[in-house]
């Protein structure tokens, strides 16, 4: 009889109490499984903010300084994208230099990563947010591994060593790290998109790219500063003399390159296109400038630029939203008014 094969099921139908038990067990397992596997934005931001959050501040890259400037596009990228910023001409932006970490009072020179974020609000319907870091690649390829990497960093040198051993995909990152020496200046670092994006041209063709901001050698012997705010003071001192400039360089992927893998560098012979020059000329303290209110979510993109499926890039949007939601609520509750009265 066909029923004999389904005996356990028939049994369960006859014993409703047991099937309820089994069902709850399966549901519990499913619940446990889903929470055990996928890291959520909440868990991620909890880990980043640490045991006591700095109310009102970003949960990552908490310390920074607001800037303004303009991008002078030379039109060289216009054949690859119809995004308005890249037609020949000038677009103004505001932005933020920052250091990685959750502490808005952290000593500048101790941070392992420095960052530059930009906000192009070209019109009320065209906005581009960009957040770049000093490394050219991630050490890992997905948010769960990144979460474990951050946990390992918190646990100490031994843990991070064995983490890298278990993650051979971190090789390009480690190679970069061993050749990198931090400078004394935000203006002398190179900042990378890390994640790849698509440029969309007039015909709708897409080209995968990464980009970086390359410092235009100006005043390389500028006076170095010391103390907790060394990088900010150095920047302020430079800006009082002259604008700080970067070339905006795009790297074009070949079909062989995996644009969804943020840990893999593309070969050095790939085509590089300088799209123009970025000129930064003003600054404000972060709580007094416009940059503090902005969520530099890299998935806020203008027509002509689209996101890849890179799991890290996709994860950033939700994690930034979680951090932004937390600090926005705190700002609404007056996190900074109290600080001002102190």
């Amino acid at each position: 009889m066909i029923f004999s094969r389904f005996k356990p099921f028939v049994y369960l139908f006859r014993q409703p109490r047991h099937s309820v038990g089994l069902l709850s067990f399966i549901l519990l397992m499913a619940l446990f499984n889903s929470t055990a596997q996928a890291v959520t934005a909440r868990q991620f931001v909890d880990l980043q903010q640490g045991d006591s959050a700095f109310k009102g501040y970003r949960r990552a890259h908490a310390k920074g300084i607001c800037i303004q400037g303009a991008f002078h596009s030379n039109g060289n990228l216009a054949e690859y994208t119809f995004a308005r910023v890249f037609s020949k001409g000038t677009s103004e932006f505001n932005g933020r230099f920052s250091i990685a970490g959750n502490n808005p009072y952290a000593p500048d020179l101790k941070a392992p990563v420095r960052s530059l974020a930009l906000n192009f609000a070209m019109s009320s319907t065209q906005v581009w947010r960009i957040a770049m870091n000093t490394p050219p690649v991630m050490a890992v390829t997905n948010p769960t591994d990144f979460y474990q990497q951050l946990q390992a960093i918190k646990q100490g040198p031994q843990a991070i060593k064995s983490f890298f051993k278990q993650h051979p995909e971190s090789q390009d990152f480690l190679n970069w790290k061993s050749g990198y020496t931090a400078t004394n200046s935000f203006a002398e670092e190179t900042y990378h998109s890390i994640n790849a994006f698509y440029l969309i041209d007039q015909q709708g063709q897409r080209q995968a790219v990464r980009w970086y901001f390359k410092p235009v050698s100006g005043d390389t012997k500028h006076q170095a500063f010391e103390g907790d705010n060394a990088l900010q003071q150095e920047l302020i001192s430079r800006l009082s003399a002259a604008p700080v400039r970067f070339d905006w360089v795009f790297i074009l992927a070949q079909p062989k390159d995996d644009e969804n893998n943020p840990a893999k560098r593309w070969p050095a012979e790939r085509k590089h296109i300088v799209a123009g020059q970025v000129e930064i000329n003003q600054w404000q303290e972060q709580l007094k400038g416009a940059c503090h209110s902005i969520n530099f979510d890299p998935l806020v993109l203008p027509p002509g630029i689209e996101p890849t499926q890179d799991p890290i890039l996709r994860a950033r949007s939700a994690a930034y939203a979680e951090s932004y939601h937390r600090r926005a609520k705190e700002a609404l509750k007056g996190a900074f008014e109290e600080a001002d009265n102190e």
Partner: protein
Amino acid sequence: MNNHPLKFSLSMRIMHWAMALLIVAMLAAGLSMVGSLDPWQFTLLNLHKSFGIFVFILVLIRLALRLKSRLPELPKALPSWQKLAARSTHSLLYLMMLLMPLSGYLMQYFAGRPINVFDWFYLPASIEVDIQAFAFFRELHGYSALALILLIIIHVAAALHHHFIRKDSVLRSMM
């Protein structure tokens, strides 16, 4: 002579069930996407925003239809407190259906994020970002969603109560 029809007009019935599906899907999408780090989160969020705008337009059409058409009457035997309860849940449901898309749009507006509607056109956002206004409408969106879920539970329970316990024509008037 009774001036009231036994059923809602066909257009209102279609609106009701189409929007019921849409709004439950919107709530499910909203609750599952917030906090997910998966690659589909961004895609779902964009659909959520586009369909949310669509819901707003549908609610306006639906309210216009409602003003124009003759509606079935609540059963005469219904105690007056239940009539009041029915009318207030219905008004609150309409209010929440307007408040959800409005608060969703306004939080994005003040965060300076233009909304890409079905890859078809963009709704404008503020050039200046106002984080406190964002926070206000983000919280409103979250708490309104909670209120809407509660209202839907009450609404469904009441409909089933009419049909299976009171055995009157209320649920059939929407079928």
